């Protein structure tokens, strides 16, 4: 059987690599100051000087998209780090040891994951108040159950495998078995979960900023906020909405392709017998 290249993973990584390098570039250099207003250059269409045009305050949209995407990505990164770390620890412990605690924690998990994360995030933000730090903490905590669920499932599967039994017989400590023996074996699944986490984090941050409860306009530019502000100028300056919206979509597309590609296993693939002619 000829192996087909994993196009999802290739395109996803390429796309994400490009967007991440643009974003990293944006941390050090943007074509213009993202906050510099200019009354002479209000709502200008894309041109050679301003590649994506300017907004209603005369700010360069490309610079703002770069800064906004950077904010979104760094929030996503921190939130996913919190979620993945605690989720993996909880999932590893419950999946490896099982028992009543596992049962109870998974019931709670089920109940939490039944709710759309954006809704829970909105509720949490209505309690804690908006702003960058709060969003990172809220999203990070909200991501714990989904990571815990994925990791737990894998650990429960690996727990009874021969190599784990072997290690136990050799007297390896439980923590070492969990994090040195089992964890590397579930890396692809974890990678897929991380990519989905990034995907959800970008979407959640953009949605919250779009709803006006996320990043405060005084903190930094944000893609969701740009989209919200652009609505009033949709007819006269559609490029404003288009740039911010496309930036969000491209970020999400990259991560969703990676998650798709990482979860790709020839044996998981739906059996594809030759089509009946």
């Amino acid at each position, binding site marked *: 059987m000829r192996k087909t290249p994993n196009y999802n993973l290739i395109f996803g990584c390429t796309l994400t690599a490009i967007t991440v390098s643009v974003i990293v570039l944006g941390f050090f250099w943007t074509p213009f100051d993202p906050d510099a207003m200019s009354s002479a250059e209000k709502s200008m269409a894309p041109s050679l000087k301003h590649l994506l045009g300017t907004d209603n305050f005369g700010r360069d949209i490309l610079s703002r998209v770069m800064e906004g995407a950077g904010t979104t990505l760094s929030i996503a990164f921190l939130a996913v780090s919190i979620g993945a770390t605690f989720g993996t620890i909880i999932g590893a412990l419950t999946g490896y040891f099982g028992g009543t605690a596992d049962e109870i924690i998974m019931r709670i998990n089920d109940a939490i994951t039944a*709710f759309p994360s954006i809704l829970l995030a909105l509720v949490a933000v*209505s309690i804690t108040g908006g702003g960058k730090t709060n969003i990172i903490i809220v999203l990070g905590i909200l991501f714990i159950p989904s990571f815990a669920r994925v990791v737990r499932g894998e650990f429960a599967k690996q727990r009874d495998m021969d190599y784990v039994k072997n290690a136990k017989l050799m007297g390896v400590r439980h923590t070492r078995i969990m994090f040195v023996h089992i964890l590397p074996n579930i890396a692809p699944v974890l990678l897929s979960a991380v990519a989905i986490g990034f995907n959800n984090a970008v979407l959640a941050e953009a949605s919250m900023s*779009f*709803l006006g409860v996320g990043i405060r306009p005084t903190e930094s530019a944000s893609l969701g906020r740009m989209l919200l502000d652009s609505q009033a100028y*949709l*007819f006269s300056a559609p490029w404003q909405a288009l740039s911010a919206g496309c930036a969000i979509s491209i970020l*999400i597309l990259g991560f969703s392709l990676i998650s798709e590609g990482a979860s790709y296993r020839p044996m998981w693939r739906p*059996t594809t017998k030759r*089509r009946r002619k």
Partner: protein
Amino acid sequence: MRYVLKKAGIFILTLLAISLIVFIAFQVIPGDPTTRMLGTQATPEKVAALREELGLNKPGIVRYFNWLTDFLKGDFGSSYTYHMPVNELISGKLSITAALTGMSFLMVLAISFPLGILRARFAHSIPDRIAMVFNQIIMSIPSFFIGIIFTYVFGLVFKFFTPGDFVQRAENPAAFWGYMVFPALAIAIPKSAMVVKLLRSSMIREMSEDYVRTAYSRGNSRWQVLRSHVMRNAIIPVVTFLAVTLVDIVAGSIIIEQVFAIPGLGRLLMTSIIGRDLPVVQTIIMIISIAVITVNYIADISYKYIDPRIRFR
């Protein structure tokens, strides 16, 4: 039947647990409601009188049961901002959001089933591969961005509808439903893409099973096999996902109501969150939670009817 009853018991317990969590969550929020209602200049006597009236000096467990019985009676307290009962504030808006959600869900079904079946039928063909690329891209576009694109293309350029010109259903039902088409579609498109993808892979997996070969050997046409044999089995994982989708649509409508200026529950929720009008937020969260749990409950018991092989104890 016993299964349905057992599930109903769990359903009610979950509702109680959620109500307790919501209650506690809104109790720990810093800030005294009396300050918000009377202002910072209120005399201590007035504050004490109001605390007595609101029952704030009773122990937490008593307040929880009072709140719960009031909630069940349909008394949701009164809004800090509007100084009117929350149920009056909500009643009209609930039906708007319900209409938007229902319409959007029907659209998801109407779009995704034909496309999913077609793509499974012509799996691995060139059109299917092209559709796969588009599917992946559409899945990545947030519904609020699709809403903005719709507003621009259909609202501002082609003038199919006037953005922001929402009509109440009581005034003009046709205009109301007409205005809802684009918001509902904006939510439905990314969700449909996900359902199409799942339905396609689920059907392809079933198509390689032995019973399918048997069905062919008995002289059934390809469409007959797909419709009455493969579909019956392929739909099972899709039902789970449809429940998730319906819940997501409810969440999506909160956002899309902002884009199209629809005065529904979502818009009220957002203004209440920003204005920190907690009784309103609390009530809307409870209503949405009840909806979420109900949807999951219905999905749970519907498996039995879709797949008679499943035996529940």
